[in-house]
């Protein structure tokens, strides 16, 4: 019984994760500016990865491999925002016409 519930929940998470990744890829192709596209890609990297790995964890709930999936999740959640941050920083540092693309806040 518990196993069935876990499998159903994992399936829901997996399907939602696939949907998030689909929308991320769609955004990556539809948007035309670096920062917008990066936003779409980062949604897939954070929420999509979260949903898919939680689904995998629920499938193999009390085993060692599910703990390994949890470690993968932690690793990706630390690294992928840093990567997005670096891409955005390079864009803001190298694009001279940044003001025409988006609002720039002076600090």
């Amino acid at each position, binding site marked *: 019984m518990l196993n069935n519930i876990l499998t159903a929940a994992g399936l829901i998470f997996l399907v939602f994760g696939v949907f998030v990744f689909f929308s991320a890829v769609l955004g990556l192709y539809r948007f035309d500016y670096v920062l917008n596209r990066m936003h779409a890609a980062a949604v897939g990297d954070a929420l999509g990865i979260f949903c898919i790995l939680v689904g995998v964890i629920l499938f193999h709930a009390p085993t060692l491999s599910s703990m390994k999936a949890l470690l993968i999740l932690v*690793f990706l959640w*630390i*690294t992928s925002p*840093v990567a997005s*941050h*670096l891409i955005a*920083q390079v864009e803001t540092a190298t694009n001279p016409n940044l003001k025409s693309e988006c609002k720039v806040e002076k600090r």
Partner: protein
Amino acid sequence: MSDGREKSAWRRFADWVNGDSEPIDRTTQYVMNRRPPRQEEPPELHEQRERLRLKKFLGLYPLAAGFLCVALIAILFATVIYIPPFGQPGNPTNNEVSRHYLEYTEEETGATNAVTGMILSYRGFDTLGESCVLFLAVSSVMMLLQRDKNNTDEQTLHRLRREDAIERTHPDNILRKSAKLLTPFILLFALYVLFNGEISPGGGFSGGAILGGGLILYSSAYGPEQLSRLLTRSLYDTVRITGLMAYALTYGIYIFAGANGIKLEMEWMMIVIDLAVGLVVACTIYGFYTMFQRGKV
């Protein structure tokens, strides 16, 4: 080289290779000089013809692309149909070779993991060749890209100094903190994969790649000088060469002992070979990164 006009055969050959050679006889020279200059057609005509060509190409291109795709798909499907079904006992891959590997790997090579036993022992020469390829690749990249006072001008030095100064005064705190958090775990995991290769999936190549990745992360977060103070050029070369030498020596001993029927502690040799391959791979990856970025280790 009698009076300066007569060149040596080697010199003429070198000129010919470089494309500097002059026409030998005077007739050729005369004909080349007398050739009428090329007729330039009017630009409108040229443009029109180019547009026509482009139109023809664009009409043909989707057709050719579609045909190519359909043909490739047909070939692949035809191949897939003839592939034997997955996991059947009567498949041609299920022959005595793989059975022998699976049954005798542990006692013949000392590795519990059959894949490691295969790449490091049964096919060790292949892996030795791969390590040599990596070693030579990073050596040639060093030859081409290493920065010294002969191939660096004042401008490049100035630019490099300015980049360093910017990096020093504007450290990226997010990157630094996350690199500080992650690098120890990445290096630890690399060591785990390296030393655990003979009893579980993993081994020299994957462990070395993770090790090199950790080094690259640290170097990009804290600046290349921070790491090159620890991993100097001489240490880098020592590690690289020692890895390859250790592999060659250990594998030589391995083959010699096996041919003469001497019993050895083979598990330890597996671990040494694994470590050697891992060091070579890590040095290659890190060397590529730092050579292309800075031109020095």
